[in-house]
Structure formats: C-alpha cells, structure tokens
C-alpha cells in the first residue's frame, strides 16, 4: 500500500494484453439531422425483439387470459343473447374487443417496466447516450405493439376454432395489425407518461389498476356504445380503445365502421402519447 502507485499500474497493465484495440481508439462518425431518430428507433426495436426471442414465457402466459374471455364470457353471453349486436353472434362481436383489450393490458405494464429499468440502471445508461428520449419511448411502444400482435394472432386462431367467421383478406389483416400497433403504442405511452409523473412502482401499480378497468368497460369492447348510459357514452367518445375496437370489428367482421376517423384518432393518440412520455422520461433519471 505504501508503494508508489505509479509503479503498480504498468505491472497490472502488462498482465492483461489488450491486443488489437485499434478500433476502440477512433470514435465513430456521428449521424446528424433527421437520420438520428429512425436509426435509434431501429436499434431500440431490435433490442426488444432480441429480448422476446430469448424469453418467450410471457407470450405464452399472456395468451391464457384472452382465451378465457372468449371461452367463458363469450360462450355464456352468446347463449343469453342479452346484448344487441346488430344480428351477429355475440362471440363474433366480442372477439375484436378481446384483441384490443389484451393489447391494452400488455401495454399498460410498460410504465412499470420502464421504472424497473430505471432502478436497474439500464435506462440511466441509455439516457447518457446520444439517443433522443423519443427514440427510447418509441422502441418500447413498438415492443408493446409486437407483443399485442402475437396476442391478436392467438385470439383470431381461438375465435376461428370456436367458429367465428372472420376475414382472411390479407389487406384487412394488415389493417388490423396497424390498428393493434397504434393502440398499443398509445396505451404503453400513457403508462410511461404516468410513470414519468409518479416515479415509483408502487404508486404506478395502483394507478394502473385504477385506470385499466374504466378504460375497458368504458369502451365498446363488450357491448355497443348505444346501450351505455349517457355519461359512459361520453367516456367512450374520448377513449381510444373504442376507436380501436370499431376499426377491428369493421375489418374483421365487416360491420359498419368509421375507419378514417378510427385511424386518425389512433395515430394522433399514439403521437401525443410518445410526445408526452418522452418529455417526462428525463424525470425518471433524477
């Protein structure tokens, strides 16, 4: 300990021989301008896909809940025939609603995930890289969308096995995918926005629970807007989930839908969500 430190360093440096570090001396040429954001979003999305590939457990366990909704709730209410669905079997009516619902339930966990990544230091370290906040948020929103797409496939397959007549038109299915991804982007950003406000996991869990059910029941996922009381109809009007379900139902079942309005609302909601979540993300690192 009393030896001069100057003597010790070369000794330890000799014990490890870093051969061929030539590339690690030259800093990479920085991208500039508009090319930064898409490149970073791409990197963040790639990471989320890699994580999904390494651990698929969540994908399987997540499929249980929508399956139960269709099998138990759907089959029962089809027999009761209590809900006016405009002439289509209730199970058919329900299936698009369950796609949207399961996508939302996945997305609403992203706030907790980002707080966890903050606590683990993963987020902190990424915030010190030349990466715009919006790219980090968009990457997460994309991952929520991918998970939701897998859910959608599960629901469509189960519904088909239960005899629901849905479209197999590839263009319409593409439209379904877009609606699912946009909806997931909005709900994951909503959750990450709240995370940026409340900052702790405990508070976010409570709020997440408190908003999920009203969003679900205050939408047309289970029953048409027309049977709701006036105040609930008002909630449904500002609830992006209703627009998502409307689009999914129109595309999958061919019911009357307002596709332009639906996609407009979903795209705007997703953009606003990304904007607000990324502006609050820095608070998590403080």
């Amino acid at each position, binding site marked *: 300990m009393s030896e001069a430190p100057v003597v010790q360093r070369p000794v330890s440096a000799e014990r490890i*021989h870093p051969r061929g570090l*030539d590339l*690690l001396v030259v800093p*990479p040429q920085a991208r500039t301008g508009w090319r930064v954001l898409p490149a970073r979003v791409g990197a963040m999305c790639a*990471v989320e896909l890699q994580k999904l590939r390494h651990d698929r457990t969540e994908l399987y366990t997540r499929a249980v809940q929508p399956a139960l909704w269709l099998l138990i709730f759907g089959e029962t209410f089809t027999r009761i025939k209590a809900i006016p669905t405009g002439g289509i079997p209730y199970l058919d009516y329900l299936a698009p609603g369950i796609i949207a619902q399961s996508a939302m339930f996945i997305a609403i966990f992203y706030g907790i995930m980002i707080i966890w990544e903050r606590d683990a230091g993963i987020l902190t370290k990424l915030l010190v890289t030349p990466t715009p906040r919006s790219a980090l948020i968009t990457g997460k929103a994309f991952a929520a969308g991918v998970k939701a797409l897998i859910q959608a496939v599960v629901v469509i397959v189960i519904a088909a096995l239960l005899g629901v007549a849905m479209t197999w038109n590839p263009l319409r299915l593409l439209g379904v995918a877009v609606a699912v991804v946009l909806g997931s982007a909005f709900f994951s950003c909503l959750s990450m926005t709240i995370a940026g406000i409340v900052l702790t996991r405990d508070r976010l869990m409570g709020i997440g629970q408190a908003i999920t059910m009203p969003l679900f029941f205050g939408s047309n996922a289970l029953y048409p807007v027309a049977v709701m009381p006036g105040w609930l109809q008002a909630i449904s009007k500002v609830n992006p989930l209703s627009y998502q379900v409307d689009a999914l139902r129109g595309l999958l079942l061919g019911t009357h839908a307002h596709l332009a309005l639906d996609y407009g609302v979903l795209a705007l909601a997703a953009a606003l969500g990304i904007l607000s979540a990324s502006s609050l993300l820095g608070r998590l690192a403080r």
Partner: protein
Amino acid sequence: MTRNPTGGGDPTEETDTDSETETVATAVADAGTEAVSCAGLVYAFGETTAVDGLDLSVHDGEVFGLLGPNGAGKTTAIRCITTLLPVPTGMVRVFGHDTTRERMAVRRLLGYVPQQLSADAGLTGRENVVLFARVFDVPRKERAARVEQALAAVDLTDAADRLAKTYSGGMVRRLELAQALVSAPRLLILDEPTIGLDPIARTSVWEHINAVRAATGMTVLVTTHYMDEADQYCDRVALMHRGRVRALGTPDELRRGLGERRGAGKNGELPTLEDVFRDIAGSGLDEQSGDFSDVRSTRRTASRVG
C-alpha cells in the same frame, strides 16, 4: 423543437446547432483541454444540498478518483457531469462542452458505467455491446469487428453469446466496461465500479480498466469509497465531504502532507488515504454517511453482484 416533432417537451433537451458552435468556441478558450471542469456547482434535492459549491478539474488522460462516504455528493456530481441532471447553479464542462446546453455533444464523448449493474440481463453479452455500438452510430460494416474488440478487451469473447443473467458480478462489470468502450469515449465515468465485488473480481475489474486506458489513453473519472483502490489505481484524487472537495492531489501527496503535519508515525510509515480522510472529515462522519435510500440502493447493487 421544430426540428424533431416527436422529441421531448423539455426545452433544454435538444441542443440548438447554431448557438452550439459559438458556445464551443468560447468554452474551449476558457477550459483549455480539461476533460472535466466544474465551477461553483450547487445541486439541492429539496431541503438537502447534495453538492454545495463543487470546484473540480480532471486533466486529459489521467485516472481521477472522486472519493467520499455515501451521501458526500459524488453521485450527484457525476449525474451533473453525465447530463442526467441539469446544472442549476455553477458551470460544468466536458472537454469544453457545457453539460446543460450541449448535452448531445457531451454524451458523444462519454462512456458511463452507473453504480447499479446496468447490463440488460435479458440479452446476451454481445447484444448488450451491439446496442451501444448502434446508439453511438458505429457503421454496420464496422460494428461486428468493433464489438469483438470491446469484448476481447475485457476477456469476454468466450462468454459473449451467453445471456448476461448467467454472468457473475465481475463479468457483468466487465461487460459494462465493454459497452462503454465500444464508442471509443474520451472520458470514461465509473460510479463505484467495484462495489460489492470480492477482492479478486475487484482487482480484475481494475486491471482491465488500466489495461484499456494504457492502450487508448482515455481519461477515467471514478468514484469509490474504497480508499485502498484509489490509493493504488488513481493518478489524482479528490476527497469529497458534504458536497465539497476538501482535499485534492496525488494519493502520495495527500498522505505525505498528513504525515508531515502529524510527524512520522510508527516505523516511519505514511498514513493511509483513509487516515487523510478522517483528518479532513473530522468527527460526525457516521451521522452524515448517506440517507436511507442511498444505503438501500447500495445494498441492492451489492446483493445483485454477490
């Protein structure tokens, strides 16, 4: 803001390119080639003043140790230097770039290893490093080779394709070092890099830091409360207590200084850095050494490492 419609709402977030060039010119003239210069930095969390008038210069190419107990303000200072916290009072520059006004320029120069084990456990070692190559714009054709070199520099080539969750604490620290190195940073910032590691892993982490520094000549700023490590591995150290630097110099200078003031000890041995620290901080160290959340986060990191 208009350049980036999906960007954050934080008005200080994105740097304005036009004013940036001017600021750089003046800042370079002021700060010369100092890797880090802090002047009069004050940062308070509500009632608690974590950093209370910090003045600090880290020279280009040195290994600089920022020492002090939990709650001395080291991590807050590091967060200001790494652009994670805004600088409310005072000035912080990294190679002449202002950390509040030129965040992106500063981030490009930094490699940062936070106190927590920050490698993503759900990815392989290689994927963890590739991510950092991508966010620092390493071109695709160069990426694989550069990642390979970073992994080789920390002896993780053989374990590169295993998930990081299977790594030991020392391996995760080395992986984080590789993540920081892949962008060829000019300043490597390590916040408590050896916390919770066993002595052998601690030595190994330090040897890799030194070997890489010897090969690349980068500046290293490290915080630690292990005084023996600082004594052994740092060119210069600053002893921080209650938000300020209380002593600054090479470990030898500080120890000799105290030795001369005290007169020669038993067997003519110099006092240790820990003695120097006790001399500066005086009594009251125990009451001041970090609040509940500091200790909790330290323990959490330690338990994940061990």
